[in-house]
């Protein structure tokens, strides 16, 4: 069985916070892990008992979640020898899940998520400006190039997540890196902005390149400010999309253009 290691594994199978709809939380977690490629197509999930223990949910809850994932087509269960639950990566299903998640969150939730992400990414960018080696800066550039040329939504989403995680690693901070990993499992549950407005990919790529340029110039203040404002912009996109889905009542003309 291909299992994850390090931060990624810890984050995917970390215990879920207490909350009412726990089987839904399991579905979302597994969905975003598939979207980010942390769980690969065809990959076998741990046994029900192990998975329930890792996520800190009851086996009843876990079975409910697996039933839902099967219904969605994200998990396939085979019986008998060599049987078990296997991951099926389906972009269409993930997009539906993301839309449903967006509809359930309030703008305050999106703002909160954006606030934390902006704090973490800005701190990472500031520190990276004085701590990232040339090799690390080259790796960041390479990831942004891959983001620019990724052809699928999942490919783009993964490169984007990887950029933020590497940025935190460039800051030489295990804790910031873990925070980014956790955040991306949440952010990965939301729609990917360029899926609704393809032009936004260029904005994201340009935003990341500007941060990497500032890091290379060893300009900590600029790196920080750029990383912060980029995340803030993206938070606004999510909030605008959320409000737009209410029936197109929200937003000025500019806002409409930004997300449509």
């Amino acid at each position, binding site marked *: 069985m291909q299992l994850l290691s390090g931060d990624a*594994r810890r984050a995917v199978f970390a215990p879920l916070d207490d909350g009412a709809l726990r089987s839904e939380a399991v579905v979302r977690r597994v969905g975003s892990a598939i979207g980010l490629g942390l769980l690969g197509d065809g990959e076998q999930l741990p046994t029900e008992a192990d998975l329930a223990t890792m996520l800190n949910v009851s086996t009843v809850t876990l079975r409910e979640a697996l039933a839902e994932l099967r219904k969605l087509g994200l998990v396939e269960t085979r019986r008998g020898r060599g049987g078990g639950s296997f991951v099926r990566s389906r972009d269409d299903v993930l997009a539906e899940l993301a839309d449903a998640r967006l509809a359930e969150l309030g703008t305050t939730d999106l703002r909160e998520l954006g606030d934390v992400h902006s704090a973490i990414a800005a701190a990472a960018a500031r520190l990276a400006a*004085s701590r990232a*080696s040339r090799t690390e800066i080259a790796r960041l550039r390479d990831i942004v190039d891959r983001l620019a040329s990724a052809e699928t939504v999942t490919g783009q989403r993964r490169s984007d997540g990887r950029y933020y995680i590497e940025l935190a690693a460039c800051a030489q901070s295990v804790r910031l*890196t873990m925070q980014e990993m956790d955040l991306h499992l949440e952010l990965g549950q939301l729609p990917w902005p360029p899926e609704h407005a393809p032009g936004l990919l260029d904005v994201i790529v340009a935003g990341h390149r500007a941060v990497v340029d500032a890091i290379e110039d060893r300009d900590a203040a600029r790196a920080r400010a750029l990383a912060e404002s980029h995340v803030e912009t993206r938070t606004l996109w999510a909030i605008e999309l959320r409000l737009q889905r209410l029936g197109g009542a929200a937003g000025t003309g500019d806002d409409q253009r930004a997300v449509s």
Partner: protein
Amino acid sequence: MNRGPEGEAVHVGEAVHVGEAARVGAAVSAVVEQVFATVARVHDTALRALEREGRRASRAVLPPGTQDLLHEPGQLAVGLGLVVAPRPEEGLPLRLEWWQVDPGDGSLRTLEPDLRPTSLGYYDYTAAEWFDVPRRTGRRHVVGPYVDVHGTGRYLLTLTEPVLAGTRFVGVAGADVPVRRFETHLLRVLGPLPAPFVLLNDEGRVVLSTAPRLLVGSLLPPDAGPPEEGTPVAGTPWRLLLVRDGHRLAG
């Protein structure tokens, strides 16, 4: 006068006490050699197994029990193993035979990194410096400190040496030492120090520092001294600088 990241004065220079620099350098070398001794045992075990049984796609090279090295008294490494270079033309896949001590309960676990290129967590180890440098140079190498984001999730130094069957590169044997453990051990060995020092790797990154303004993981400010300055630490790609605020020490 040089300025650190916050604009404060940072003076870096070679030791007035050449003897003191030598003492610190020798202690650093000894710790590194201690870890490389473990790496050498992994290396020798791998070579013996390869000579005896060759390499097969379906089977591990290292015999069971190799990982018990991690439980030896005084062991600084928390991870060790062998990374076998892939050889697609012979149907031999890449292979990572690596164990690590669980930070929680101290048990040994195999590391199973994400080797799928399409994943957010993809660990492209053939591009990793700890694999690539020994492969290219044929010599041992020390990488770090670095956040091992796609492997163990720790802040590490990784020490590796190439495994050669004759002249053929088979892979690398290596060990991981957490930066914190390296620091704690070395500072205990050194005892009281007359002057703060900073240990720098080949990228100018601080490996260990007793100067509070030069933090582990940071890069030495470019104006803090010429890159060749300092005392090379034998057996490592590192150099040692003694630091004193207020005036520059004679080289």
